[in-house]
């Protein structure tokens, strides 16, 4: 099922290693397969209390009043936790790395901004007692207009979701409502392109769906410390977040993680620890706060939805000369980590291809839905779906094999990327070649011979990078190159095959394996001449 191609890049590797590269059995495997590895919820406490959260039934509403008097008197209830009980009731996760403003309360004080937003905590002797008491809480709301579509949210007069960012967009650098990418000149390139293709892509939210839902147990220790058993993916990140919200010193908290029953990015947000600790402080007893499956599915952060529009300018010889991307990240009601993913998305544009003109605007937009967060491939997964779907459409429109089209445009060592750093250590071409060979996807000889290590260089982007202010920002960037005054893709290798005018077939099917370009038919006008150079075999 898994094999290695050790022959490729062998000259860059030291393979005389002892432990590295061995399929060593993991040290915890016996615990995992015998069901004895300890999860946070395997810790047992005789006097354990349970925290359940009353959540908003509305997507956007002003809380007029809360009457929890009957709930407070209900059997088994030890404590009601209200917004006013939270020491620091406004936080944003990335404040730990000084990115963004505090915008999210642990418990909503006056306004709820998504269906499922926490309003009130009930600490009781059992989950059942807490849930039964919750049914006795009376909350009256004034419903407010809500917005669920990212582009609707940007229109003038749209309901304002998040008072920290009243225009419904995260603020970048104190002045922009989006992250920009500017490289070369897309407008001129679109005018010169043989073909311009535009399309729009949408990824819906996706749930992490861990086997173990988010949860934690906070246990009072001596000296005013608390031990917190947690399912977090990021121990100190969660510890520092919980300390901030509870106005505690970090060394008052002793976090113990361990086996995690599935993370995928959904256990970074520290959704249970701060209130579990607060409940333990207020009651003096161990408190468990764990999400039900319903809470995990609908009110734990999902992978956020993304809407991505792509416009490509392509030449008949297969070169992509311009790529413009406009994308909207649906952050839900609060920032959490979406602001970070926007920048990561911009860094990923235009994908692993060398394109001389690239332009992108990516927005982090607030809507009245469950706040989104990190998930495996954060900022990249939906973009890759859009880019690679669009690459296929480009290839079909040009009548070029979709895999050869990718190899043709793949970045190589020495190329200049759109974020103005030199491409190094590239291997996209080799992956394409190896996968094609294994899957019997026919590639013509000249594509089988290409290498990530040859033919790259700043000339492929027309020296666009030299116009950048690269040295001012990162001295580690490539040294300035003399700027070639042309948009030419000079590639010394390989030999040019015969030029076949692109015949646009309606389908993206790879050419039949029986009919690859014969090795001998390389005379005549060079194909992809501007790309491969004009050297003949």
């Amino acid at each position, binding site marked *: 099922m*898994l094999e*290695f191609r050790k022959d490729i890049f062998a000259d*860059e590797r030291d393979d005389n290693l*002892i432990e*590295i590269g*061995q399929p060593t059995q993991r*040290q*915890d495997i016996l615990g*995992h397969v015998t069901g004895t590895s300890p999860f946070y919820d395997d810790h047992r406490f005789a006097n354990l209390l349970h925290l359940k959260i009353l959540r908003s039934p509305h997507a956007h509403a002003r809380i007029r009043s809360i009457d929890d008097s009957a709930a407070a008197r209900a059997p088994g209830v030890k404590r009601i936790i209200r917004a006013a009980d939270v020491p620091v009731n406004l936080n944003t996760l990335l404040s730990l790395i000084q990115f963004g403003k505090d915008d999210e309360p642990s418990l909503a004080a006056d306004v709820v901004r998504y269906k499922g937003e926490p309003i009130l905590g009930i600490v009781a002797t059992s989950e059942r007692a807490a849930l039964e008491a919750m049914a006795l809480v009376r909350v009256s709301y004034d419903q407010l207009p809500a917005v669920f579509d*990212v582009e609707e949210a940007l229109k003038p007069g749209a309901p304002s979701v998040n008072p920290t960012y009243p225009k419904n967009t995260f603020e970048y650098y104190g002045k922009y409502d989006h*992250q*920009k990418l500017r*490289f070369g000149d897309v407008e001129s390139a679109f005018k010169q392109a043989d073909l311009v293709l535009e399309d*729009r892509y949408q*990824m*819906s939210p*996706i*749930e992490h769906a861990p086997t173990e839902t988010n949860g934690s147990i906070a246990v009072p220790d001596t000296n005013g410390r608390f031990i917190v058993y947690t399912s977090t993916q*990021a121990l100190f*990140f969660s510890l520092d977040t919980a300390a901030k919200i509870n106005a505690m010193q970090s060394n008052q908290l*002793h976090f113990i*993680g361990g086996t*995690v029953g599935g*993370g995928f990015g959904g256990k970074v947000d520290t959704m249970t620890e701060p209130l579990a600790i607060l409940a333990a402080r207020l009651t003096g007893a161990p408190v468990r706060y764990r999400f039900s499956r*319903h809470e995990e*599915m*609908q009110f734990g952060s999902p992978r956020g*939805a993304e809407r991505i529009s792509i416009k490509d300018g392509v030449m008949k010889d297969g070169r992509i000369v311009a790529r413009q991307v406009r994308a909207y990240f*649906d952050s839900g009601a609060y920032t959490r980590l979406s602001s970070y993913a926007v*920048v*990561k998305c911009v860094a990923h544009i235009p994908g692993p291809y060398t394109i001389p003109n690239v332009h992108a605007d990516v927005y982090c937009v607030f809507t009245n839905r469950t706040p989104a967060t990190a998930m495996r*491939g*954060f900022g*990249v*997964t939906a973009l*890759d*779906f*859009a880019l*690679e*779907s669009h690459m296929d*459409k480009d290839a079909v429109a040009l009548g070029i094999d*979709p*895999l050869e089209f990718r190899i043709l445009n793949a970045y190589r060592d020495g190329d200049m990327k*759109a*974020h103005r*750093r030199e491409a190094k250590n590239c*291997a*996209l071409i080799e*992956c*394409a070649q190896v996968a094609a060979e294994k*899957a019997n*996807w026919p590639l013509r000889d000249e594509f089988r011979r290409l290498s990530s290590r040859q033919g790259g260089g700043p000339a492929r982007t027309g020296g666009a990078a030299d116009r950048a*202010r690269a040295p001012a*920002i*990162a001295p580690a960037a490539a040294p300035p190159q003399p700027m070639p005054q042309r948009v030419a893709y000079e590639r010394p290798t390989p030999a040019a095959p015969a030029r076949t005018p692109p015949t646009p077939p*309606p*389908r*993206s*099917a*790879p050419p039949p394996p029986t009919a690859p370009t014969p090795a001998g038919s390389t005379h005549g006008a060079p194909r992809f001449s501007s790309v491969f150079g004009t050297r003949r075999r």
Partner: protein
Amino acid sequence: MAKHRGRGVATINYPVGMNLGGDPSQALVHSNPTGKFTVALSSIDLGQGMKSVTRQICAETLGVPVEDVYVDTADSDTGPHCMGSFASRGTHRVGNAVITAAREARAVMLEAAAEELEVDPGDLETDGKGSIRVKGAPHRSISVRDVAIAAQFKQGKTISGRGIFLVPLSDVDPETGEMSPATCYAHACLIVEVEVDDETGEIAVLKMTSAYEIGRAINPKLVEQQLVGGSWMGMSHALYETPEPYYPNTRDGPRDFNEYLMPGPGDICQHDIIVLERPAPDGPFGAKGPGEMCANPVLPAVANAIFNAVGVRINELPITPEKVLKALKARGGGAAGASSGRAP
């Protein structure tokens, strides 16, 4: 009514570590009095094998058998800071921190051994089996156990080391987006074959073939589990999953696994994987991180394969039978137009 087969491809890369850097991790390595080592971390093993990867890296760097190393992690009182297990950063960031810590511990271990053998530490080498010997004179050797005992009880040395790895935080130019997002990238190409039923709109994923370039496979079995699991997630993202089936309309959200659709074991297909290793200059033994990227190529490859099979483009995820049927109907229905240009 017919079933149509198609093939699709995607090629991707993926950045290793948090975007822009600024995400440190630390490691502490020390020997007990009989030459067995502990790596102290606070990094979380999510099942991806964090403990195995760091254990093998530590053993290789120290020059001792992997059985002589255990990794203790996920306790904030005993483990030094780690940013967390996300962003494909564990192997790269924590692995590098472990190398630094293990090198420091190894230097003390060799000093202690040199004192026992009355040679220069520079003349010593480890055999990876639990002994330290004089280069070129293997009969002059001492076990790591005896070195640790001597260091602890005779020489008063602590065989230990500290490590941290930090990629300095990059600025971002607000006007151009100029930045240093990552120091290294992993790569992949994935080809997928699907079968589309033009009557029901149902899609079966028949086979995947992929090539992944990941710098260095520290543990091939862990790489395989990531890549196989990731492709399953990618297929699930492509065809099944969302808590908001009518996004941006919020109605009909699933509440449990009866309502939240995912493929079952019977839907999983053969996946031939080939691993390439082009070492990252700053990776631990060249390693990058395959953790997140392996779902990504599956989504577009499946969409492209569906087009190849029945000639419709679905731009909205997940690609449900409902969307396929609507697209087929909009284009004239059935398999019309889908018979030409079939995949080989």
